[in-house]
């Protein structure tokens, strides 16, 4: 998960209170933020694109701008050191994008810490900008939401905050710009009032992308610009690419890749045009609401202006005109008694109401005793009443909850196969065998060929990983023996004799099961040493069979992993019951040779379930 650096001074400024870093860390953890700690960051400003870079004090200065790509080693004048800043480092929780930036986080803490209990409220005013959406975007990137924000002042700290907020919203909601991507423009560079959102050919409409001095076609930008290369995949397979243009045809951006250089936001910019494009109207609107309200928090007193988005006939949203941003609050209801019960605390209706107000909600009590909760527009994670219960629980503090156990009596019950497995473990340990545990993911050669077994149909992975030697690990193990032989291989040179066993699941195809597979509990054992071999294996199997309450019968068996004439099919007999459980024998010298084993090996593998005398396993 990305980590965001929150300038402490800025956070305190917006909180309207001064809170020590240690206390901030604790409060943030209590509201669910994954805080790594706080530290001082050195800062560098890119003279080419205005980006502000932060590096930990012990790290090297940046060598290249990751926004515009300029190489500071070649152009030493393109970067200047500016004042360092104390920051809190926090891992982002994708579900709460409204607390990704100091403005949004201060907003959450203001009510949580009861510094200011006024519920956040945002108004947008009517404006005269329009966006005409061309039908052709429907196939590429159909949705767009926009607004104008006026009266912003950005210093170096705030410009970086806005930059990082965009980047983190791209990650959390946009899934790396796929579902939502944001463009912020200096409004003074946008000509006219009628913006156009359309597609153009990849070789058309050259413009100067952010950080460049020369114009480039969309194709060239996708091939060469750092952001173009990074996000080209999002436009793959499309002959035409989306473009946002002002009234005079000046290119503002090529969503979701890059803005134009001439609309670049600088610390001198005061009025912004903002767009969010994407694949789903709900996602783009929520993203815009979060960004616009966080900007309003960062610069109290800004004016948010509505923009009319006009969808044409033939567009999934059209024909229609939609006004954005949507800063409406959401109304939900909560039964306060149910909330208190679910959290497990004593809390009155008023108590629960206060807890919710501390989480930024506006709360009123209905005549039926329920709470009417007005949630702010930036909360996109409220799907159900229980989401408000969690808000109340967080406000109460998980650390303040008096823990208990459920009062209801229930009877514990182990799975019989686990009990039986533990019986078998005790028998084998008593016989001097050491248990091993292998990973259940393996490869076909390892599981079959290398121990002399014919391949049988088995579960296969579509996207296997590879082991150290590059062999695809693409199946779940169909036997345990292969893993044990491999263990003997790894333990070559160790003291002899060695006696190993494993009890675990193997996976088999089974068309009768809903998943087409089932796990079978197996036990396998191997012994290597001068005296190891068939006789030892048979003694072992007889001991196990007897200890589990059966007696052993053997029939000759030909199986590739064993020497011919020194392998047996293993039956367990009890009264008039006779069940096949597995096999035992002396491992074939081919296998020993393959694994570099210099002594004979006795081995066995069997199913445990048939040996459960109760039949429950």
């Amino acid at each position, binding site marked *: 998960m990305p980590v965001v650096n929150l300038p402490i001074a800025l956070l305190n400024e917006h909180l309207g209170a001064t809170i020590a870093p240690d206390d901030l860390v604790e409060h943030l953890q209590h509201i669910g933020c994954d805080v790594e700690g706080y530290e001082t960051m050195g800062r560098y400003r890119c003279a080419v694109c205005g980006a502000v870079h932060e590096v930990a004090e012990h790290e090297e200065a940046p060598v290249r701008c990751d926004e515009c790509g300029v190489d500071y080693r070649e152009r030493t004048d393109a970067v200047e050191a500016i004042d360092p800043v104390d920051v809190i480092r926090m891992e982002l929780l994708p579900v709460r994008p409204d607390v990704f930036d100091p403005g949004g986080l201060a907003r959450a803490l203001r009510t949580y810490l009861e510094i200011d209990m006024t519920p956040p409220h945002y108004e947008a005013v009517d404006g005269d900008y329009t966006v005409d959406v061309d039908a052709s975007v429907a196939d590429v990137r159909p949705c767009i939401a926009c607004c104008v924000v006026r009266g912003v002042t950005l210093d170096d700290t705030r410009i970086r905050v806005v930059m990082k907020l965009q980047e983190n919203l791209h990650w959390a909601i946009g899934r790396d710009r796929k579902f939502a991507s944001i463009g912020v423009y200096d409004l003074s560079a946008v000509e006219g009032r009628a913006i156009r959102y359309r597609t153009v050919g990849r070789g058309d409409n050259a413009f100067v992308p952010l950080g460049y001095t020369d114009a480039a076609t969309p194709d060239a930008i996708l091939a060469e610009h750092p952001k173009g290369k990074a996000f080209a995949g999002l436009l793959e397979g499309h002959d035409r690419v989306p473009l946002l243009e002002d009234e005079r045809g000046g290119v503002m951006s090529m969503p979701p890749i890059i803005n134009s250089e001439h609309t670049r936001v600088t610390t001198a910019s005061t009025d912004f045009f903002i767009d969010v494009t994407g694949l789903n109207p709900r996602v783009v609107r929520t993203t815009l609401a979060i960004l616009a309200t966080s900007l309003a928090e960062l610069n109290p007193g800004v004016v948010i202006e509505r923009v009319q988005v006009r969808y044409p006939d033939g567009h999934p949203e059209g024909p229609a005109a939609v006004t954005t941003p949507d800063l409406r609050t959401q109304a939900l209801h909560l039964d306060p008694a149910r909330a208190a019960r679910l959290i497990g605390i004593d809390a009155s209706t008023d108590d629960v109401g206060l807890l919710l107000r501390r989480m930024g909600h506006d709360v009123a009590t209905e005549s039926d005793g329920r709470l009417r909760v007005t949630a702010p527009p930036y909360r996109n994670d409220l799907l159900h009443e229980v989401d408000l219960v969690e808000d109340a629980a967080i406000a109460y503090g998980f650390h303040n909850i008096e823990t208990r156990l459920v009062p209801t009596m229930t009877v514990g019950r182990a799975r019989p196969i686990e009990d039986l497995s533990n019986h078998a473990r005790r028998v084998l340990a008593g016989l001097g065998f050491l248990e091993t545990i292998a990973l259940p993911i393996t490869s076909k050669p390892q599981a079959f060929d290398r121990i002399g077994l014919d391949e049988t149909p088995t579960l296969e992975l*579509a996207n296997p990983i590879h082991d150290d030697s590059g062999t695809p690990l693409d199946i779940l193990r169909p036997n345990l023996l292969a893993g044990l032989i491999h263990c003997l291989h790894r333990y070559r040179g160790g003291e002899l004799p060695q006696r190993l066993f494993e009890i675990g699941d193997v996976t088999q195809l089974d068309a009768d099961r*809903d998943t087409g597979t089932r796990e079978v509990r197996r036990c396998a054992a191997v012994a290597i040493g001068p005296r190891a071999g068939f006789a030892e294996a048979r003694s072992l199997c007889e001991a196990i069979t007897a200890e589990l309450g059966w007696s052993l019968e053997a029939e000759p068996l030909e199986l590739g992993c064993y020497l011919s004439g020194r392998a047996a099919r293993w039956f367990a007999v009890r009264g008039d019951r006779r069940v096949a459980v597995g096999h035992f024998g002396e491992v074939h010298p081919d296998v020993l040779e393959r694994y570099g084993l210099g002594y004979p090996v006795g081995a066995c593998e069997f199913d445990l379930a048939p040996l459960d005398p109760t039949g429950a396993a």
Partner: protein
Amino acid sequence: MSEITWLEETDHRVLTALCATDGAIGLDALAAAVSLDAARVKVVVDGLAARDLATASESVWVELRLAPKGKALDGSALPERTVLEALAAGPGEARIAELAELAGLDKKAAGESLRWLTDKGWATREKDRVVVTDAGRAAVGAPGADEALLAALAGDARRPADDVARDGVDLDAARALLAKRKLVDERRRVDRSAAATTGGRALIESGVEARREVTQLTPELLADGGWRSVALKPYDVTLDAERWTPGKEHPFRRVLDETRRVFLELGFEETASPYCESSFWDFDALFQPQDHPARDMQDTFYVKTPAEARLPDAAIVDRVRRTHEDGGDTGSVGWGYTWSEATSKTTVLRTHTTAASIRALADDPNPPRKVFCVGPVFRNETITYKHLPVFHQIDGIIVDEHASLASLLGTLKAFYNKMGFDRFQFRPAFFPYTEPSLEVFVWHDGKGDWVEMGGAGIFRPEVTQPLGCSVPVLAWGLGLERLAMFRFGIERIRDLYDASLDWLKETARCQW
């Protein structure tokens, strides 16, 4: 000391010999008297001394004798003496070339004499001549300390240094003169002697029994009672013995099994679910949207064979579909997308044991129930020392009308307490299928920090209601490898699975 009623045969023989002597007897003499070698007698005497039956004493002295080069002189004078006397008998000087003939020495001895003549200051070399000095003249007829010592040791005598000194030889001067000549050997000698103590004498006089010493208690000695009349040799019990390690369970198995035992003790029934799971049970039934990043190929193993699973009862599938799309009857607004049945049929390796919990809940949604599952889960991770594509989880649910966040925290506390942890934190977190959600952190002394162990929460109504459950369901999924790594002090998760033979043998069953 308890009363001595018998002595081991050899002890008896040696002590008897000591009693036959008034005062001390040298060990060599003693050895001769009892017909044992000296080394053995020393061990026996030391043993008797340890029991206060005898005293052992030793004196250290220096033995002097001629070294081979000294013997080779065969009683004749040192060559420089012979040359000096010859020169002094003549004009007091001679050409070096004529020395051998003059002194009647061979050329080698005559050559050697030159060095010592000048070293002792008896003569000086002047070009090709040797000239006797005043000191040389004074030395004529007056043997030096070195010559006195050689004379005292003549005839291959071995004499104590003190004895030689008593004869008037200045040993310090002799040693200085002979320092570079290897003519005399000095050896440090120890004279050991022993005497019986009063106790030892009284014991022998009392006619104490002598018994034969035996190392191994044999069946024959046991059968005929012969062990009563032999001495069983005492051992040095402080010595290391051969190392044994028992056959045993894998250390990680004990953690897995203890985990099971804790939940059995808390009244939970155990469940299991297939490793190959439908996306329906692994994700959809848990209200995980179908475009959720956890379902990406880079996080989840997809199964090629079998590629498709059968879905459960159509009514359940339909309720799950509607819950995803618009919340259905759950009071939720849902995720707002078109749910795909085909996607939910795709098979994956289960990414969490919560798949087992949700199947158990679907099988019987009626409270009260407590269910747990311990087993492997799979994530598409490259194998490194830190990451494996497989790890184990303990997943559990409590289906109970009285269940609450407070009882979830209490249950988690009970588990970690029983597993040996006493400091925890529960921090708010997010999972698509629980609300409230939290992460469990335990304090790790070694790291000096809180370590995340897993997630927990109360299943969302979007999860429980489509399965016909209307009471709160507490749920958790906690990793077990990390717990085992703490217990066994392992840094790399891979060491649990690629354990060395020694680690398997030597990791103690009990870890305190």
